[in-house]
């Protein structure tokens, strides 16, 4: 990644916009978002696709921090997204508070739950962690069905109040736009976070936790912080989806989404958070908007993941980046020859 290599130069170059960490990804991401929004236009179904893609992207971005930066695969993200969604549903149905509060409460509750689960599973890693967090996701769904008084049981919560931000009620299209903006902002910030000292410490935890501990950072504690951050981001996604869909049930966020979210960064490229976003867009395109062989879209995705894992482990974004680096190298050589 060129952004990584230009890290100290960013300081020396001062205000040079090209040297702002993460700006390249942001520019590409925004350009892609604009193109997608142009393609969507006023088509209602395509707008739903965008909110779905944004939700998938936010769940994958949430997982990005603990899974690809810190190297621990927690799979309870259906629960975290669900909390974000139920926060919107509950604030709307059971309180008189402004709906915007849900986006504050949901992520915080999800983060706290992630910390709790992280504390209980702090000694686990790999297969054991994956199994427990999957079981937790199942138990959470069971809980939502059981706790009818709170969650509305298997019927879920519906009839949401419209969002009111200081007197402004966004239209459906503005919500679609807003979710795309939220995704771009969070991906950009995560990309910068990855390059920051915090990101360096967290990413070192993955390969060399002993070194992090020996440098003075308590690894289990930082792990909890990473899990909490990831859960909060996924909860934002859950909230967005629930608001756009107008309702939430225990089946809204299934374990299927968690599996997809593991694969999205693989498809897009694990090197940067934008890879997760790209993967989310591809996943939605294949699973929800593939008219030719609708039912097999997910199968195609699953097989694609296997192929990518074997053939192009850096994913789409990583592959494009390699091409770009090569292209730059060629371009730089041209003037010399001429």
């Amino acid at each position, binding site marked *: 990644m060129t952004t990584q290599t230009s890290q100290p130069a960013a300081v020396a170059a001062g205000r040079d916009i090209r040297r702002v960490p993460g700006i390249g990804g942001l520019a590409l991401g925004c350009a892609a978002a604009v193109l997608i929004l142009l393609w969507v236009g006023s088509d209602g179904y395509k707008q739903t696709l965008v909110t779905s893609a944004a939700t998938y992207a936010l769940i994958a971005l949430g997982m990005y921090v603990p899974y690809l930066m810190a190297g621990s*695969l927690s799979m309870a993200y259906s629960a975290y997204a669900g909390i974000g969604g139920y926060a919107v549903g509950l604030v709307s149905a059971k309180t008189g508070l402004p709906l915007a509060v849900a986006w504050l409460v949901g992520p915080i509750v999800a983060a706290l739950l992630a910390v709790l689960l992280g504390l209980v599973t702090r*000694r686990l890693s790999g297969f054991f962690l*994956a199994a427990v967090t*999957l*079981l937790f996701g*199942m138990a959470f769904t069971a809980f939502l*069905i059981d706790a009818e008084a709170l969650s509305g049981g298997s019927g879920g919560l519906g009839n949401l109040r419209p969002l009111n931000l200081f007197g402004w009620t966004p239209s459906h299209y503005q919500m679609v736009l807003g979710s795309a903006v939220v995704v771009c902002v969070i991906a950009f910030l995560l990309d910068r976070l990855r390059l920051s000292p915090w990101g360096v410490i967290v990413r070192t935890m993955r390969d060399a936790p002993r070194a992090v501990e020996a440098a003075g950072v308590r690894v289990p504690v930082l792990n909890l912080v990473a899990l909490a951050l990831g859960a909060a981001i996924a909860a934002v996604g859950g909230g967005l989806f629930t608001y756009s869909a107008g309702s939430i049930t225990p089946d809204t966020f299934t374990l299927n989404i968690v599996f997809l979210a593991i694969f999205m960064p693989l498809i897009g490229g694990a090197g940067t958070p934008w890879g997760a976003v790209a993967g989310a867009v591809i996943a939605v395109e294949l699973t929800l908007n593939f008219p030719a062989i609708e039912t097999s879209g997910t*199968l195609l995705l699953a097989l694609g993941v296997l192929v990518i894992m074997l053939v192009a482990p850096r994913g789409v974004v990583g592959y494009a980046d390699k091409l770009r680096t090569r292209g730059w190298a060629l371009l730089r050589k041209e003037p010399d020859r001429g």
Partner: protein
Amino acid sequence: MTDLQLWLSAVEMGCFFGMLALAYYLIHVGAGFFNFAIGPYAMMGGLCTSWLVITYDLGVWPAAATAVAVTIGLAALTELGVVRPVQKRSGGGELPALVAVAAVLFAIQQLAGYVFGYPTLPGQSLATFDPVTVGEVTVQPSSLLMIGVALLSFALSAVWIRSTRTGRLLRAVGDSNRAAALLGLPVNRIRLIAFVLAGFVAALAGILFAPKAGVNSLSGLAWSLSGFLAVVVGGTGSVWAPLFGGMLLGLVEVFLPYYFGGQAHVYGMLFIALLFFAFKPQGLFVRTVRA
């Protein structure tokens, strides 16, 4: 239903989980990791049999034989096509292997859904004799077969591991794939045998269990978790340990919903997982390591 009938049900469930755990055990001993695709193998066995019988009017036995062959093929493909190349590239790290088997799990689910359809199909019973009544308990032929085949699988595995050359090599290879390769042991062949046997056992388990509640393309994930839990609870100390773990989970699966309502077994599973993973991750039966 009498209490005794519940116990029978729990034993049957336990045998099913035990067989899944045995499949985990074989791959874990031979290849040193947990193959989460075990549940989907079992689903494949059960669903493929039912689909062949229902769609093509095939006899149960040829259908089951085809399903077992397909599942064994999938298991071999998992090792040859996915796990081995990924592990080779990543140098044996745990996370890449985990993500790879998650992808396999997901792909088999989708493949089964695409080919066999998404609705739940009724299981096909291999045994056709009448239910046997012992006192107050009615034993379905499918239950009898499940229990019998499970015990037989465990017995044969135990004999195989203890008294054949390949079986003994399995242990040697599994302790350290790299060290075994340096010693010139046929690591790849042994690993493949472990995967094939696991696929066979899992497919059999799926076929025998399907009559109990039917099977659909998404049954595999929950079965994967139950089997994993059973092998963790039992431990990998002896071939029979997974059966013990399976029995314990069978009791949980049957009695918790009976006493505490429909979803209780899900909470119970989570509770057991947390309990064991936190305090006894090596399981109840630990293999004594000779220094």
